[in-house]
């Protein structure tokens, strides 16, 4: 059958075989030794027509509850936010999405400049001097930051707050194994990292201290105090993972002397899409510029003196440095970085603050509403757009019931730490209305019994 993605006709085939000087295409595969040849038919489903397959896929999609069918209060690192329509229109320009990595600058100025603008926006949000072109996601960006700190300081001990995203913590462990790093976890008290414990653990052998700001519980870690502890050790680095939207309101980690700031730009223009692809970012100081993993775009000029952009400092990267590279990363999340750039451009200077504040105000309204309805909430400290509600029953059970009522409930904190059994992490973003919040609180109250 002639497939719509393959233009070769029988006539083409005959003409090409003749030029090659063989009688059938099988001769071109003759160098595959007979014992390793596959002679059967691949055991996958038969081809479906475009119309029928679309219908089937739409059917699969409709089996899922999603944010257009349900009202969601689920966050925990992945959030439903306002995505301006222009974002998808820009990333649907096929000159962007069907292009490879911009290794030929003369015909890749569009992508290169878009990345340069992304790097600038990430620097602005985080208060850092240098940002790369993106990482897979916030979790792997954090793990790469940890590895960088160990390589740079030649120390193996890394202190990690247990108030960071639990899956990021897991990823740090997996990545750290390659370099035999020693990960020390610091507990939290009242929703914040225990600084006494941090102080006790910090020593001359510590490569870095890892914090999340706002942390996994939505609380704002006192980075100023953390930095003053970290700076007592000469070489130890401060690594901060940050939701960049929160930095529309909060003082950016760069101003507290962070050495590396990472996170996920999913909050800017990227749909939740079951956890990926999102868009990790990686920002650091000029001092560490040549140690950064992944691609960097730099400004330069062409032969005529015109401003233009190129991939630069590539001597760090795997395709040049091979086994001595700063990281093995090659593909990144370029198209999603573009989406985030468009979203950040749309929001602009005022919009990021306005959006951050909307999140904070609506979350505060929701927290108060839960309290008024008789729920215990955690914690009392300043927070961004998430807080904890204590329930009478397992969160999982309640969430199943909420689905039937048109809600996607919050995150079950008990799945990571036993102390949080029956504790739901509720996320409230700018897209939730007062009515939706009121109905959610009332429904949770009803189901909670």
């Amino acid at each position, binding site marked *: 059958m002639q497939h719509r993605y393959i233009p070769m006709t029988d006539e083409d085939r005959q003409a090409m075989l003749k030029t090659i000087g063989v009688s059938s295409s099988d001769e*071109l595969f003759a160098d595959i*030794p007979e014992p390793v040849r596959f002679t059967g038919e691949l055991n996958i489903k038969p081809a479906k027509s475009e119309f029928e397959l679309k219908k089937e896929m739409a059917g699969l999609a*409709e089996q899922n509850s999603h944010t257009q069918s349900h009202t969601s209060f689920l966050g925990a690192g992945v959030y439903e936010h306002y995505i301006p329509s222009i974002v998808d229109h820009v990333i649907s320009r096929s*000159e962007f999405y069907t292009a490879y990595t911009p290794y030929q600058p003369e015909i890749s100025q569009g*992508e290169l400049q878009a990345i340069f603008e992304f790097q600038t926006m990430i620097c602005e949000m985080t208060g850092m001097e240098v940002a790369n072109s993106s990482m897979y*996601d916030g979790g792997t960006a954090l793990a790469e930051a940890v590895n960088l700190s160990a390589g740079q300081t030649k120390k193996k001990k890394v202190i990690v707050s247990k108030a960071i995203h639990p*899956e990021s913590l897991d990823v740090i462990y997996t990545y750290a194994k390659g370099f*035999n790093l020693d990960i020390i976890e610091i507990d939290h008290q009242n929703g914040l990292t225990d600084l006494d414990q941090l102080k006790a653990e910090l020593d001359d052998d510590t490569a870095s201290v890892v914090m999340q700001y706002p942390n996994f519980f939505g609380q704002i870690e006192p980075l100023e105090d953390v930095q003053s502890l970290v700076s007592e050790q000469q070489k130890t680095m401060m690594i901060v993972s940050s939701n960049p939207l929160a930095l529309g309101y909060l003082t950016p980690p760069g101003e507290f002397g962070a050495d590396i700031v990472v996170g996920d730009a999913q909050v800017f223009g990227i*749909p939740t899409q079951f956890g990926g692809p999102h868009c990790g970012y990686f920002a650091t100081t000029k001092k560490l510029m040549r140690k950064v993993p992944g691609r960097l775009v730099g400004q330069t000029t062409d032969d005529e003196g015109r401003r233009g952009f190129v991939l630069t400092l590539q001597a760090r990267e795997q395709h040049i440095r091979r086994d001595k590279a700063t990281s093995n990363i090659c593909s990144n999340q370029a198209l999603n970085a573009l989406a985030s750039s468009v979203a950040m451009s749309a929001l602009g200077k005022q919009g990021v603050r306005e959006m951050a504040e909307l999140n904070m105000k609506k979350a505060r309204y929701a927290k108060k509403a839960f309290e008024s309805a008789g729920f215990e909430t955690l914690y009392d400290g300043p927070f961004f757009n998430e807080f904890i509600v204590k329930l009478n029953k397992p969160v999982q059970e309640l969430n199943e019931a909420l689905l039937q009522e048109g809600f996607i409930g919050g995150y079950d904190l008990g799945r990571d730490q036993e102390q949080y059994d029956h504790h739901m992490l509720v996320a409230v973003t700018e897209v939730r209305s007062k009515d939706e919040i009121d109905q959610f609180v009332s429904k949770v109250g009803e189901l909670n019994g």
Partner: protein
Amino acid sequence: MANEQDFPVIFELSKEGRKGYHLPELDVDDFNLDDEFQKQYIRQEDPDLPEVSELQIMRHYTALSTRNHGVDSGFYPLGSCTMKYNPKMNEDVARLPGLSSIHPYQPESSVQGALALMYDLQTSLSHITGMDYVTLQSAAGAQGEWTGLMMIRAFHEANGDYQRTKVIVPDSAHGTNPASATVAGFEAVTVKSNERGLVDLDDLRRVVDEQTAALMLTNPNTLGLFEKDIIEMAEIVHGAGGRLYYDGANLNAIMGYTRPVDMGFDVVHLNLHKTFTGPHGGGGPGSGPVGVTNELAPFLPKPLIAKTGDEQYFFDYDRPHSIGRIKPYYGNFGINVRAYTYIRSMGPDGLKQVSESAVLNANYMMRRLSEEFELPYDQHCKHEFVLSGKNQKKMGVRTLDMAKRLLDFGYHPPTIYFPLNVEEALMVEPTETEAKETLDEFVDAMNQISKEAKEDPETVQEAPHTTVVDRMDETTAARKPILRYYRD
């Protein structure tokens, strides 16, 4: 610092007070946030993002897109990258709200459609590669390599083989192979290619020993040649207790003809953004699923997608020997959706036709181009082939010059100066989605450039002549890096 002739960056369009957004209303009580925070935690200086209107943003990025070349713009024979057509249907499917607007922590009961899709994709990739299990978690090829190597490391350690610290990589391998070996805590050891462009078996025997953890191999290799000694290679490595790692970068050449498992491989990663039409996106996102045989399955990253007897899908976290979590959530789902849609569009016959046509297209181009260009390995290739610009270099025209000259003809040039073992290399991969007419036109352009190299070398040496910018000063870019925009 912008000249008049410079194309503006978006920050230069900014004007105070302009807006490109309209956020939902504040319909709850207005809280005085500043009362809650200590002053030092309240941002004093707003981030300097552009203030632009919606149309300004659209025009800016539309203009940028016209300064970019994608597969839809024109032929893109970039070797080792499989720049095939990205079906539009896949884009539509991936944007269905039931797939794009679901959250990774929703109850499993509310994402059965997504889990069924992932399960069926895992199963399909298992059959295509012959591997017993596949995880979809790796975000890209390089992460897949590292994941596979971490599993091999865990496997050896479970056997008490802590001395297996070396990973063998051919000199023609992609740079991610040795880099991934390092990140997984191994030492990368190079095995040489022979004069036929294949792994030198004697050298392989020399480097393999009781410290060998694995051999990483791309087959067909980066020269586009099938490693026909694969049976002996597998025997040598397995005989010494090592494992075979298949870099799936070149799977587009062999679907339905042979499977990694048939060749003796124990671990495989695939690049769904190459063979399975995930768009490259200007550098990502990709997706790099990893397949393993039964003996390595206990070490797969957490979680796996599994199915109960009554067809309910769930995440299996109960995996005590797992290498752990390699990425938050479950991989680049959106790319996996596109790949799944593609596989279902093609079916088993279609995928075999893909490989047949990819190989036929490459051989046809190779034969036609070999009249004018040096062909270092004169034998049938698979999905790609490597030429040398040696003949043209004698006339003072380098491969880089020819690549730049191709831009004037509206083509993205082939991969150049890779693999490292061919002088002035030009690595061409046409893919199966290109028509014979396109290949012929490209060959004509290449022949024209070769003719220019003889008769009018300056035209080639000074190329490109038609692009929006000329050759860039990359030296200054690296020596005095400017990595972000600063206002004057």
